[in-house]
């Protein structure tokens, strides 16, 4: 705090501002160089230039279709897992019995590889969105449960006493004290979950899909179009970054007090 955390000179500030971009550019340049000089074949690691040209081999409308398919499933799965995880966490905080009973079940669900239960899911829910959303949700919800329960349990006892002394209904203790207190924890969980949601959507597309970036990548790979698969990867990474940032923006905008104080 006593030392200024921002560099002073204009050049320094510029460098600081664009450091991430610069870092990526340097990384990509290096990658290109390694591929060119080392003569790395495409099927091991395609050069960025090859990826870019592969990118243009696919019509933009196809890209958008795939992109949207994945994004849709990821977002629906993410939303579903929030809808499941938060009430579940609240239930487990409020009832030790529920906690002791459900937690093991959740761990079991979390550690079950999707492929193993894919037939079950598909037979029950078909090959369409419901299956994919469920798979995404299965992969996504656990970090949310863990961080929400941890955060709510960490609520300082004196705040709980304040609530008890007011004889407020339990649900208000939860919503007006424990949940706000847990916000930093919850957002930490959301940040992990949102990236898992993308992974979940991709896995779901491995199990059942005709489109989507995961499908596209696997498809390209199975036809040995590796640069094209990497182009798909880049989109995937871009969505992840965007969604991650969105979660941060939401926290910044709606819960500014939950952010660490900057001095």
């Amino acid at each position, binding site marked *: 705090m006593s030392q200024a955390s921002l560099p002073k000179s204009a050049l320094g500030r510029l460098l600081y501002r664009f450091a991430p971009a610069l870092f990526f550019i340097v990384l990509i340049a290096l990658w290109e160089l390694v591929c060119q000089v080392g003569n790395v074949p*495409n099927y*091991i690691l395609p050069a960025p230039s090859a990826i870019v040209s592969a990118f243009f081999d696919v019509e933009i409308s196809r890209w958008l279709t795939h992109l949207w398919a994945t994004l849709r499933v990821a977002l629906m799965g993410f939303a579903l897992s929030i809808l499941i995880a938060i009430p579940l966490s609240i239930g487990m905080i409020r009832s030790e019995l529920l906690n002791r009973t459900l937690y093991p079940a959740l761990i079991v669900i979390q550690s079950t590889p999707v492929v193993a239960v*894919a037939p079950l899911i*598909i*037979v029950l829910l078909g090959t369409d969105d419901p299956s994919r959303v469920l798979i995404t949700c299965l992969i996504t919800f656990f970090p949310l449960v863990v961080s929400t329960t941890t955060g709510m349990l960490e609520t300082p006892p004196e705040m709980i006493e304040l609530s008890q002394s007011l004889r407020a209904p339990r649900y208000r203790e939860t919503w007006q004290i424990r949940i706000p207190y847990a916000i930093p924890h919850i957002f930490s969980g959301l940040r992990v979950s949102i990236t898992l949601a993308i992974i979940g959507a991709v896995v779901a597309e491995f199990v*059942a899909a005709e489109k989507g970036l995961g499908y596209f990548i*696997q498809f390209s790979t199975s*036809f*040995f179009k590796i640069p094209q698969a990497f182009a798909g990867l880049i989109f995937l990474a871009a969505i992840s970054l965007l969604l991650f940032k969105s979660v941060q923006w939401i926290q910044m905008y709606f819960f500014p007090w939950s952010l660490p104080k900057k001095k």
Partner: protein
Amino acid sequence: DKVTFQLDWLPGGDKAPVYVGIQEGFFEALDLDVSIASGRGSTDALTKMATGQSDIGSSDIGALMAAKAQDDVPVVAVLPYFTQAPHAFFALKSSGIDSIEKLDGKKVATSPFTSSNAFLPLVLKENGLSDSDIKLVKSDPGALGPMMITGNTDAIIAWVTNTALFTSQAAEAGKEIVELPWSSAGLSLYSSSLLASERFLEERPDVAKRFIKAYKKSIEFTYSYPDKAGEALHNIVPEVDAGIAAAQIKSITNLVYNDVTEKDGFGQFEQTRLMQTWDYVAEANALSTDALDPKDAVNLNYLPD
């Protein structure tokens, strides 16, 4: 001499020869010490051979051609294994589907990333149908059988290597299945073959020759004595049921030994059929036929005399 053999999938009846070779001592007799690595699809197998993780292995020649057309993959086919396409439709007997034409307007399930999907339009065309005549859904390979048996779908697309498995699965539910192999519906091409990395061939030509010789012998043994072959597989991979493996082997014998091998003899890539295979692959993968001279995808110099 150490040789690493690459499977393109998990061990199973169709992969029996290499296990037979080990169990029956065919490799040992030629001073070969073979270890086996399982794979996860033909691309995975190709990549592992191309990068030198393994020396030689079995994979689809169509995948190799597609790969070679797009990338200079240093892998070549050295011995055909399946001389017919293993792709097929399966349906319940009760569904009344007994020919490909009857699939008109039906729901067909396939796994998302099988090479069958690329050949599907060709087979449909051969039988007077088009893509839009069937309703195709994609789902996890493990779910296909259950989907068909529960009536979730009218038919499925799978490899005939799985016929035995589907049959027993259906039997459990008291049902029977029919198999409509694409090879008898106009799709005539080479399929699973023995591939080898070019580096392996160049650096250890002698080892390669010996291996191919032993492997060929193993294939012959496998299909002559399927039960023994099943045993051999089970001995090395205890998770595999000897009986099921034997049943698998029996059910795919005609992929290995058929009118093609009768005509050309086993172990030969016949030029026109190779060309034809490439034409199919090119069309299926939307590649230009000029992208590859199919002769470059094979190397017959290491065949035993």
